[in-house]
Each structure stands twice: as C-alpha cells, then as structure tokens.
C-alpha cells in the first residue's frame, strides 16, 4: 500500500535529528512538524525572517504580522527570533539551516532537483527554492513516487529546468525511502506491502537495494496517518 501524505511526513519526522534547524517547503513538508516526537527539539525556519516557528495560529488568535513563507498565520515558540531577509538567507546560503524538506517534480539519480518550473506554467516564479537547494546540506525530498499519470519522477536525468544540481540527499515517497549516494540511488526502505521490485518498476533510474533494506515502521493507527489503498 502506498503511504498517504501524512505517512510520508511521519516518516520524515522520524529522521529529523534532535537539535536540527529545519526549513519546510509547502505541501507534504508542512505536515512534518505535526509528527515530530516531543523528545526532539527542532527549530523551524521560515524564509521571511523567523526561527523557532510554532504551529499554525488557532482561528481567532492570528497576528497579522506573523506569517510563514507560505503566508499562513503561525505562532512562535519560546526561544525563537525575528530577523530580516538578508540574515534569513545567510542562514540558508551559509549552511546554517541543517535540513530542508521540499517537494519535487523530478529528482535525478545524481541528486539533481527540478521543483520550480512546472511543465506548462506560463509565469515563472522561483521564490526561495534555489537558495534552499543550493545552501542546505541535507536536502530531503517528499513526493509521490510517480505523477498522477503514473510516470516515474525519479529519473536518470531531469527533463525540467533544474533548481540545483546534485543537491538531493534523500527521497521520501509514498513507496520508498531512497538515499542519493555517490554510487547512485540506494533503496533503504519500502512502504508496507510494497516490494523492492515494485519500487524499481516505478523508478526510471537503477536502484541498488541496501543490504539492510526493510519495511518502513509506520504505525497503522497513529493520529492522522491512515494508509491509503495502493
């Protein structure tokens, strides 16, 4: 069975280390913070000058001056800070933010990432996507393994304009967890009920299967994580 968006987010949350500084992209990445163990202390960063962001603001408590980069009303946790754009992107470009979790349109076997120009999009926009992809050491991708037309998104080489070359370190999909290594893609985990052959069949680049490759530990009944039918 393929994972839900929440299932993918849960799996990512398991891997974020205590003490990491994390920038979450929009979409599935936004869900990651909800699944973070309370034992871990992670500071979330927003491009528009916030470190130490808390959950979305509850209705009626929104502060008009406190939004995240997706322009949603958010909250602050104790120990957070405000700063301006040059400082915020110094944190990104200077390698201080340790992890970013981003969506992707395509990822290549060498870690090339395409996530800023959708095919057929007539007005281009890049936002902070390139800064994140170039600046942060651990670029982790969350996405469905294939497009809604069933075409693989993990490719030998990207066909869409690149966001950054050779930047992706790890890919979390609804079918698998794959590391990008100097020797190519390494399949490390599969979603419950998915075989390594299934994953390869839906991937347009060769996968090595890790010796210790195993099924993902996704609790069936954790709050919000329902496994959808494959």
């Amino acid at each position: 069975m393929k994972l839900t968006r929440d299932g993918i987010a849960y799996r990512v949350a398991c891997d974020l280390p205590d003490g990491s500084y994390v920038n979450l992209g929009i979409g599935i990445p936004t869900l990651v913070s909800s699944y973070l163990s309370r034992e871990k202390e992670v500071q979330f960063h927003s491009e528009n000058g916030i470190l130490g962001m808390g959950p979305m603001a509850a209705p009626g408590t929104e502060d008009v001056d406190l939004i995240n980069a997706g322009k949603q009303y958010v909250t602050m946790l104790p120990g957070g800070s405000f700063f301006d754009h040059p400082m915020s992107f110094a944190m990104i470009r200077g390698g201080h933010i340790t992890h970013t979790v981003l969506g992707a349109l395509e990822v290549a076997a060498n870690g090339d990432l395409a996530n800023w120009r959708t095919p057929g999009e007539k007005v281009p926009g890049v936002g902070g996507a390139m800064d994140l992809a170039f600046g942060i050491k651990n670029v982790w991708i969350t996405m469905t393994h294939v497009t809604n037309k069933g075409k693989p998104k993990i490719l030998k080489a990207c066909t869409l304009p690149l966001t950054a070359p050779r930047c992706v370190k790890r890919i979390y999909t609804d079918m698998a967890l794959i590391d990008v290594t100097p020797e190519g893609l390494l399949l490390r985990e599969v979603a419950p009920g998915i075989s390594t052959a299934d994953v390869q069949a839906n991937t347009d680049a060769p996968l090595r299967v890790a010796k210790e490759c195993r099924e993902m530990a996704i609790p069936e009944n954790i709050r919000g994580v329902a496994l959808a039918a494959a």
Partner: protein
Amino acid sequence: MIDKILKTCDQAVEKVFDGATIMLGGFGDPGLPGQLLEALRRKGVKNLAVVHNGAGAGDWALGGLIKDGRVRKVTASFPNNPGAIAFQDLYLKGQIELELVPQGTLAERIRAAGAGLGGFFTPTSAGTELANGKEMRTIDGREYVFEKPLHADFAMIRAHKGDRLGNLQFRKAMRNFNIAMAMAGAVTLAEVDELVPVGGIDPEDVHAPGIFVDHLVHCPRHPKLVEIGPPK
C-alpha cells in the same frame, strides 16, 4: 531640526517621477507599504520599474498599480503568487517585463546596493537557467554566479513605529526586505502604524536607523489589512 514626518502619503510620493525604479517592501502583508502605493496610484506616475518579492495581489496596492498599466518591469522572486492576476495577465500579453531573481539573491543584491558594494558571488542558481548569460567563477572548488547590486530611486516600506528622525522599529515578520530596501533607496519613504517621540524607540530596538529614511507618514492599518487578533 530634523523632522522627516509628512502629513500624507500623497506628499510623500510627490517627487516620484515617470520611469523611476521603486523598491517595495513587505513579504505578504507584513511590511507592505499599501497606503504609499495607493497614493502612487492616485498620482498617476507611469513607466515604473518595481523591485518586490512578488508581483502584487488582487487589484490593490502593487496589484492595482500594475492593473493601471503603470509598471513596465518587475524584478521579483515570486511573481507567480496566485493573487498576482494583474501581473500575470500583462506578462502573458508581453506587456510587462520580468527579471526573475532567487529570493536570497534578491535580498542580497538590495543589501549590496545599500552597503556600497559593486556586486558579489553567490552559489545560488549556478548551473541553472537563471544563471544563463551570467559570469561564473569557481572559488575554492565551488561554482558561483556574479550578481550586481540593485539600486532604486525610491524605496517604500512599512514599519511599526517611527520617530521624526526616521528611526524605525518593525514587529515580528515585518522586517523582511524592508531594512535592506531602506538602505538601497536613494529616497526612502516609510508608512508607520505609530509615531513616537524621539527617544520612544530604545537605541537597542531601532531596526532601521533614521539615516536610511527620508520621509515617514503615520498610516493606520489599511482596511484590507485588518488586525485579526490582538497584537501581543
């Protein structure tokens, strides 16, 4: 005596000229100089080049200025924000120019202008189509792109508190591009939630020192920027 306070936004934008390059602060609503922009629309100045993170939203402020056909070029990182209908319409008709810049590079180019630098090398965009035609250089084994400073004839920003010396204090996520833009504008105009007497902002809390600010206007929040919850 220094007194940079003007009574109205219309006075503040009086010297903006046709063809001017204008930086507009704000990321989303926080820090957006909505009322200065509305004054600029009333003035009817044209052929503007605008530097802003997005390309306006709806038909208000920058969105309105673009809809009115006053803008010839937008330098932005995120002009495809869903609300930027006026821009997208003109762009698809080929009636407005776009310089697309990654957000961090945009912020740093604005700061470079304000800081008197001639440009810098950034890794961002190296090997992508946004680096096409740009000077590349390998420094200590990594590829970098040369980026030039972004200057402006006018910078328009919004702050929380201001005094007659032009000192500005922001609130929460209002700072965004606004300090760098205040530095980069040949003339910087600020609208503020609140005017305070000199000394009303602690020297530790001045985010944009008055040296960067030419004029400021007291503007209560625009009706479209309703305070949803009470400020903490």
